[in-house]
């Protein structure tokens, strides 16, 4: 898998002229994750047209304002770390193509834009996953990536118009826009590994990935990242 921007066609970046007036629509298309019936008001206490979280120049990473579309069978480069080593893929992981990475909620303010009003995730230790102590002792780790690290990765990816985040300390790339809850404990998502994309589920309560305990520390990181994006505070 190649990193560093593969998958983006900068020549197709929107000029703006052909799209003037098309910024809005009538809002009748059901977005990924469905319709919310209760808005998450966030810290503003109400409507706020002036001050967005992204005011003040936190825009983009190195001017990467390329266009993100659907790219089947390919890799989303991100210019981030991946040493090219093969990462673990379980036999029960289903390969998929044509993943929608343009979920409406996956945008600035994604934490309050997530339309589902159910679900909660407090991290691997709250409540503790049953397998945690024994497995992590064997793996030689004591923690997973914090909510802050994962949230920042998503914020930066959105600002850079990049549909993936590198799952911290792994070679997995999470297509964060693919994350969707299934009930209050489960989440479905797509991960990119070794040049392919896989549709997976995670049980955030039990700490399972595709119904199994993680086989590696990397898989535990992946599980944690997907659950944080779906249900974590952001």
């Amino acid at each position, binding site marked *: 898998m190649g990193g560093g921007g593969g998958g983006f066609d900068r020549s197709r970046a929107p000029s703006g002229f052909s799209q003037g007036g098309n910024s809005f629509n009538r809002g009748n298309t059901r977005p990924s994750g469905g319709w919310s019936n209760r808005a998450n008001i966030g810290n503003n206490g109400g409507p706020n047209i002036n001050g*967005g979280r992204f005011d003040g120049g936190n825009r983009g990473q190195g001017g990467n304002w390329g266009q993100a579309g659907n790219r089947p069978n390919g890799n989303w480069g991100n210019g981030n770390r991946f040493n090219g080593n093969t990462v673990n893929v379980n036999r029960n992981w289903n390969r998929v193509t044509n993943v929608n990475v343009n979920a409406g909620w996956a945008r600035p303010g994604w934490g309050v834009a997530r339309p589902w009003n159910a679900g909660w995730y407090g991290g691997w230790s709250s409540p503790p996953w049953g397998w945690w102590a024994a497995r992590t002792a064997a793996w030689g780790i004591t923690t997973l990536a914090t909510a802050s690290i994962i949230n920042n990765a998503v914020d930066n990816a959105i600002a850079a*118009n990049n549909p993936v985040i590198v799952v911290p300390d792994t070679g997995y790339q999470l297509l964060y826009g693919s994350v969707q809850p299934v009930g209050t404990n489960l989440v479905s998502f797509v991960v990119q590994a070794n040049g392919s994309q896989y549709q997976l589920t995670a049980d955030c309560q039990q700490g399972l990935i595709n119904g199994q305990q993680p086989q590696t520390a990397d898989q535990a990181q992946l599980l944690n990242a997907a659950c944080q994006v779906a249900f974590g505070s952001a």
Partner: protein
Amino acid sequence: MAAGASLAADAPAKAAAVSQVLYSLSTRCSIEGAAPKTCVVEVVDEGSATLYRHRIGAVTMTVRITDKPVRMERWNGAKKTWQPLKEAAARFSTNTICFNGRDLCVVNPNYLNSVRQDRPDATAGRDLVMVRFDGTGRVNLTCYDDGCKGVKS
């Protein structure tokens, strides 16, 4: 929109046969820059247009949006007519959309999620989007983010 304008809730509900409630959203609204209040937004797909009924206490403010091309109108209960809006703006990061300056502002993530997903190219990397309408209701100006700073209200 005049302050406290009370738009008849039932007048624009003269629905077409294909009318379908898309969602009802409990959220917060602000009228003419006043303090936000709890409100409910009922959204109805009428086939060629989408109605947004904002119920803020005893006040109902209804906005009708069509596309191809995009047009936005408000229901004038006194005149029993739809009047074209002059302006609309949205800030994605706060889930806010405002109609006619600050006449009506609402937190509506559903609308912005739908727009974002339906218009990925036009909205990618954008936070603030504003459109102006001419006297006939057609968009005659679109600006984004810092580009809106030079646009006078």
